[in-house]
């Protein structure tokens, strides 16, 4: 007993042979009260709080994972969409290029045709003009030659060819003869 007395100072062997298996009434009552207080404060107040927090944390983590998955899905979807759009745009561009090339070729062909037509027209016009000019020159020449010839003939013959119709006939005949001769020479 000495050590215990030294250590604690207030130990007492109240009974000579105490039975340690007999519960003390005060201890039972106080033990019950103390435990019930602990049970109340922890069980009714504190543990429900931490359980709720743990549940919320689980939710938050699961929610976070779910949100991340959703975001990834969304990103994947958008990427697919972009790729699709890009492919479409490339296709469209190729189509436009092809179309433009065709159109260009067509335009060139059209222009060429048009130019040829125009050239032909100009040539034809020129030919007609030349023909007309030649005709005109020929007619005038014929007239002048006729007059000159008549003038010359009247001077030589000294007679005035008064009858216009006869005169014209003579000149024409003469000229036809000239023409025939020229053709024959050619």
């Amino acid at each position, binding site marked *: 007993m000495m*050590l215990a007395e030294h250590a604690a100072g*207030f130990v*007492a062997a109240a009974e000579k042979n105490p039975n340690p*298996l007999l519960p*003390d009434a005060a*201890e039972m009552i106080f033990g019950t009260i103390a435990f019930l207080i*602990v049970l109340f404060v922890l069980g009714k107040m*504190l543990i429900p709080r931490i359980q709720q927090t743990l549940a919320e944390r689980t939710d938050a983590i699961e929610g976070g994972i779910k949100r991340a998955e959703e975001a990834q899905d969304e990103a994947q979807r958008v990427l697919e969409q972009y790729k699709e759009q890009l492919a479409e745009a490339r296709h469209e561009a190729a189509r436009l290029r092809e179309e433009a090339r065709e159109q260009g070729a067509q335009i060139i062909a059209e222009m060429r045709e048009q130019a040829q037509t125009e050239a032909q027209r100009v040539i034809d016009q020129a030919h007609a003009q030349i023909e007309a000019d030649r005709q005109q020159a020929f007619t005038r020449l014929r007239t002048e030659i006729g007059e000159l010839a008549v003038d010359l003939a009247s001077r030589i013959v000294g007679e005035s060819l008064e009858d216009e119709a006869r005169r014209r006939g003579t000149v024409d005949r003469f000229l036809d003869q000239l023409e025939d001769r020229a053709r024959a020479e050619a």
Partner: protein
Amino acid sequence: MSAPHILAKDFEAPGLGLFQWKPLFHIGPFAVAKPIVLCALVMIIVIAFFWAAFAKPKLVPRGWQNVGEVAYMFVRDEIGRPFLGKDSEKWMRLLIPVFFFVWLGNLMSVVPVAQFPVNSRIAFPLVLAVLIYLTFWVVGIKNQGFFGLLKNATMPPDLPWALYIIVIPIEFVSTFFIRPFTHAVRLFANMFAGHLLIALFATVGFHFLWEKVTPLGFGVGVLGAVLTIVMTAFELFIQAVQAYVFTLLAAFYISAGLYSDH
């Protein structure tokens, strides 16, 4: 006279008196001695710790909440869930107070100045065991009915009928009468014996190294001092194990009340 007798002539081993305390004061007819004071201290520490940890729990834990969560999850995963499965959340409200009330009561054995395991006084384990025994009855009758509880507890299925003659009385007495006592006495006896052992070695060390130093007794004193330290370390382990076992059995008894398939 032989040497040991001479050596230990004046040595008096600590006895049962180690567990008898002078009343410090009285509340009505009840004498309040050191065990009750320590019990109150345990109550205050348990409440203070869990208040610090869980009063305002955060989604991202800090400080005491981390420690509290480790404590909570230990009891939940090691004791609650194996026995009570999906019902464990609800019963954690009982198991956490039981575990920490018992463990801290045990721990008082090695706390300087306190140095007395609260649960080496049979009254404290007994009231806990009785509370759990009553809980077993309440949930048992609620979930299985009175006769269902009797039948499920005393008649394990698939036994040859002749065996029931032996099994039924054994199971009946063991489940409904012996259980609360074994539950309480297991804890009490461990703490009682542990305290007695530490006190014995400490007394040996003190007696032979301080009170009565002799050349022959010196070695014995050193051995006593060393063993005091070793036993204290061992007691730390036993205290935790006994708190664990006490709570485990509580969970098991409650599960026996909740579920019939045992």
